[in-house]
């Protein structure tokens, strides 16, 4: 009998603990490390975009390849932008977070342009150049976050 009386309390405590854990996992400030990882993945996406755009610029690729890859990577950039924009940054990385959201947005736009003109060499060359610039911006944010010089 005693066990039975205890059970609701134990269950309630477990439910409360579970709910707290779930809520806590969705809360909390965006840390420097998390932001750094997000920006590094943006830099990696930009580097990949630069290579794909280079293929378009040199007429050395298949347009369906450029289009599908741009669509996939653009989706990843958009997802990263949303993640960063939704996150609550800790005060000391607030400025870098805003810069990262802007970089992610620019990256998504560039992939969108590549997706629209996957066979246009002129557009390919422009996107390649801009991807390089976006990568530099992302690397600069990483440098500010880590205190190490940009690569």
């Amino acid at each position, binding site marked *: 009998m005693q066990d039975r009386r205890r059970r609701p309390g134990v269950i309630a405590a477990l439910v409360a603990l579970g709910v707290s854990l779930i809520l806590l996992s969705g809360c909390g400030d965006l840390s420097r490390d998390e932001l750094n*990882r997000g920006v590094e993945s943006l830099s990696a996406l930009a580097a*990949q975009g630069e290579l794909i755009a*280079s293929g378009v610029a040199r007429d050395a690729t298949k347009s369906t390849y450029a289009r*599908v*890859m741009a669509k996939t990577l653009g989706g990843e950039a958009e997802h990263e932008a949303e993640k960063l924009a939704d996150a609550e940054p800790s005060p000391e990385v607030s400025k870098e977070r805003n810069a990262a959201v802007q970089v992610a947005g620019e990256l998504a736009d560039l992939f969108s342009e590549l997706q629209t003109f996957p066979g246009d060499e002129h557009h390919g060359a422009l996107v390649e150049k801009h991807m390089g610039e976006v990568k530099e911006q992302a690397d600069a944010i990483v440098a500010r976050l880590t205190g190490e010089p940009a690569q």
Partner: protein
Amino acid sequence: MKSILKIALGIIAALGGFLDIGDIVFTTQAGALYRYDLLWAVALGTVGIAVYAEMCGRVAAVTGRPVFDAIRMRMGFGLGLVSLVASTFVNVFTVAAELGGLAIILQILFDAEFSLFVVLAAIGLVIVVALLPFGGIERVFGYCGLLMLVFLATAIHQGPDWGEVAHGFVPSLSDSKLYLYFVVGVFAAALMPYEVHFYSSGAVEEAWDESNLRENRLNATVGYALGGILACTLIVVSGYLFHPVGVNPTDLGTAALPAQGAFGETGLLLALGGIMFCVGGAAIDSSFAASYNLAQFLGWEWGRYRGPMKAPRFTVSWLLFLSLAMLIVLSGINPVEVTEYSVVLAVVALPLTYFPILMIAGDRSFMGEHANGKMSTTLGWIYFAVIITLSITAIPLLLMTNGGGG
């Protein structure tokens, strides 16, 4: 020359095994992250799978028994069932991943809805299996998979520092958990259980006997060495192109970029074609392996050579596994992530696959004069110790590295 042409079974098993979707992404990522540092893990895995595949083929040729028969015989019903459930789980997810990979390549080539290509890829595999005999399937996927040689040409064209590449074959460990995760992943991908299940059942399909022992050795050495070399070239080309600029290749399509960089559109198409046949071959390997295991465990008639009417339960189970895999991909799960997880989870099941093989192949009362010699026994036990170590560390590393995400 005739002997070389006969090693299609080894080539399809090796290409399908070494260069399936997860492996292509795994090795490409390994190159991008650690440049040439993980080449030794591929070499280690290559020797390991060659050693065990040779034993499996030898057992099949001498006794007419495939691996799963041996597992059931040596480990009894209970452990045999555990092994069956574990391998079927991994196999079905591997088939799903390969189907997804095929659909990704078709989408890249023809740019239409991904789900449409998933269904078309499954139908295509059914048609291929229905129309071609076992030997034909081996030859189509094995030899067309050789389009992957474009990556070897790419590596030569890139002209990396070969001294640095050679240094990558010297084993090195690091305290980085992510590095260790990739060591486990690269090694495990080479020893996926479905490879030996398919290889030994294939030997029975082809009615091997003792006269095929030389062919078996060629298959195991040349076939798997070729798979290993191609896996190494993926690391080299990725390390050369992606590592310096910080690309993190998480998509199957990215793996083809180095070939495009070296040879333009032709290189890209050859790379995509090679990946398509490797992934297609792996889909057949793993789906057949799932049905082989089930049929051998339950004592059903099995084998492509019997035809659907003489092995109906085997055929129906194959279609069911393929359909299940198709539904998994259509549910929206990322095929690349699925296969990476299945590779690492498969490590846990490795001892259940490889221990019975080692026991049976070394049993003189069973294998007679063809039992393991000193060399096979020594290598077999060394590799078994490595397998045990990895199977203990795989899951903690998977969790600690957030599935390789760092």
